[in-house]
């Protein structure tokens, strides 16, 4: 297990380095600069501005300076949101995105697991078909379709909830984005859960438990569920990392001050430091959660450990 952990770490760190490097050079190779919009600047003024952001230095020097600062958690000032450093912007956006993602994931887990378990226990009945039809709908309708429709129905027609905005995370503002974000995940989890349950329900140890006269409830909770949950662990690792990346479109639609919105606007405005900072934070999260889920998987399944020996 230790060997496996070290090997996975040996992948994780170079991966992060490669991502950061690739993102840095891609952004710099782009035609067009962050100050293009301010067209009427004197050439000397523009030169001074560029110099103050180190943009006049050779590319490799910029890269070295960037790495040195990034290691200390300093991603420099944002080029577009003046007076804010990138670290500050991320500190503002990250809690919003995480709160959104975490709540959606919890909701998706509760609904998805319940749906999947019920569907599996009542296989090929109306209940099963209904749950699976809903799951299919969740997969077929991307969040950017459901989100505006939810906003229209509950916000504009029924006037139950605000259409957009954050309002310091008031629960009324959270409901619609969280639901819109959760729906496609509910579908995936329900299908995974149902598949896992069906496979285990047919296993011989479950038949044995039945033959020994155990109650159905006890069979399901003690014998079926623990095994049926394993595929979900594999799904959850990357999905947890997606807590932050997933809400990009939702943040735009509901006008929430999350990291995703900063990222898209940063990329469109060529705000290099902001984009780089967010990429690094995201990549770190993704790599970390993938690592954790791989370790959990290896802990649960000895075959995975063996493959790396």
């Amino acid at each position, binding site marked *: 297990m230790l060997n496996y952990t070290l090997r996975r770490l040996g992948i994780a760190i170079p991966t992060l380095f490669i991502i950061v490097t690739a*993102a840095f050079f891609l952004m710099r190779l782009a035609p067009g600069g962050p100050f293009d919009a301010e067209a009427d600047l004197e050439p000397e003024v523009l030169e001074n501005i560029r110099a103050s952001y180190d943009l006049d230095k050779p590319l490799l020097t910029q890269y070295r300076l960037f790495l040195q600062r990034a290691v200390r958690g300093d991603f420099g000032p944002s080029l577009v949101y003046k007076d804010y450093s990138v670290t500050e912007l991320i500190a503002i956006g990250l809690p919003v995105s995480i709160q959104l993602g975490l709540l959606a994931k919890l909701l998706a887990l509760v609904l998805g697991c319940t749906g999947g378990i019920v569907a599996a226990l009542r296989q090929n009945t109306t209940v099963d078909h209904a749950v699976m039809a809903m799951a299919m709908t969740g*997969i077929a309708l*991307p969040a*950017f379709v459901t989100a505006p429709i939810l906003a*229209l129905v509950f916000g504009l027609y029924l006037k139950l909830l605000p259409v957009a905005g954050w309002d310091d995370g008031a629960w009324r503002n959270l409901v619609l984005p969280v639901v819109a974000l959760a729906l496609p995940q509910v579908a995936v989890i329900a299908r995974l859960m149902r598949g896992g349950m069906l496979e285990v329900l047919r296993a011989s140890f479950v038949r044995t438990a039945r033959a020994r006269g155990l109650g159905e409830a006890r069979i399901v909770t003690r014998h079926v569920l623990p095994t049926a949950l394993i595929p979900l662990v594999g799904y959850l690792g990357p999905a947890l990392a997606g807590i932050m*990346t997933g809400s990009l479109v939702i943040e735009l639609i509901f006008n929430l001050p999350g990291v995703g919105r900063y*990222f*898209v606007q940063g990329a469109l405005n060529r705000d290099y430091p902001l984009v780089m900072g967010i990429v690094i934070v995201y*990549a770190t999260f993704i790599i970390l959660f993938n690592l954790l889920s791989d370790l959990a998987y290896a802990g649960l399944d000895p075959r995975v450990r063996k493959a790396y020996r």
Partner: protein
Amino acid sequence: MASRPGALSPGPVTRALRGDIPASLWRQASRRFARNRAAMGSIVVLLLITVTSIAVPMFWPHGIEDASWEAILAPPSFADWHWFGTDANGRDLLVRVFYGGRISLAIGVLTTVVALLIGVTWGTVAGYLGGRIDGFMMRFVDILYALPLLFFIIILVTVFGRNIFLVFMAIGAVEWLTMSRIVRGQTLSVKAKEYVESAVAIGLPKPVILWRYIVPNVLGPVVVYVTLLIPTNIVVESYLSFLGLGVQEPLTSWGLLISQGAGQLDSAPWLIAFPATFLAVTMFCFNFIGDGLRDALDPRDR
């Protein structure tokens, strides 16, 4: 020799001639698939959407860029051939939905072909060669796997400009990873089969073995994955278009139409309703076909 029925059980050749020999894997699978009504229906619907997307813009009275000042944000009606209504520029929505269908479907299929080519090549080569090369190739996949994909597509598209060809390449280039993992796993198990051994024994060159013996036998799971990858890629393109990074006006795609419709949801709900319906139905169809194929190729699950 006179044949006396029942005296001897007929040999394999006789049974094959009579047609009661167990059918090949693919024939059995296609029989099972043909019995799956949801999947067969989906194929029909999908064909219909494809054909209409290609054909309707050719003869429809309105072009995709024809703006009409008399019909701005006109609701759907059969008058004037605005069956799906018009948008804020007075352009006919129906022709734009079908035209967007061409682009969305083309992107879905072409990106999947890109992913398929890279993924199958990478996976079979890694799996067949094995050893250090395999380790290196799969480690490379591991590293790419950790990339926040949507983010990298966004960076790529902002860096290299928004042209549709780049969108194809970017999506295809990041979606081949799972494909290569699936193919490698299959290759490892196929490699150990006797027919591959015999191909090696008669001295066939490696590329021939890969192409003639390995690739055809790893295609089962690949086919299933392809039918699920096409809708995924259509949605990825829609996301990009939604963010304003995908297809650009005057071209259009379902994603772009939905994003434009989302802005006028309150005043003109038909602008989102029609493209969203087409997108959703297409998603349904691909998923049903994918499920059907999986059940047909791997009957254990039912």
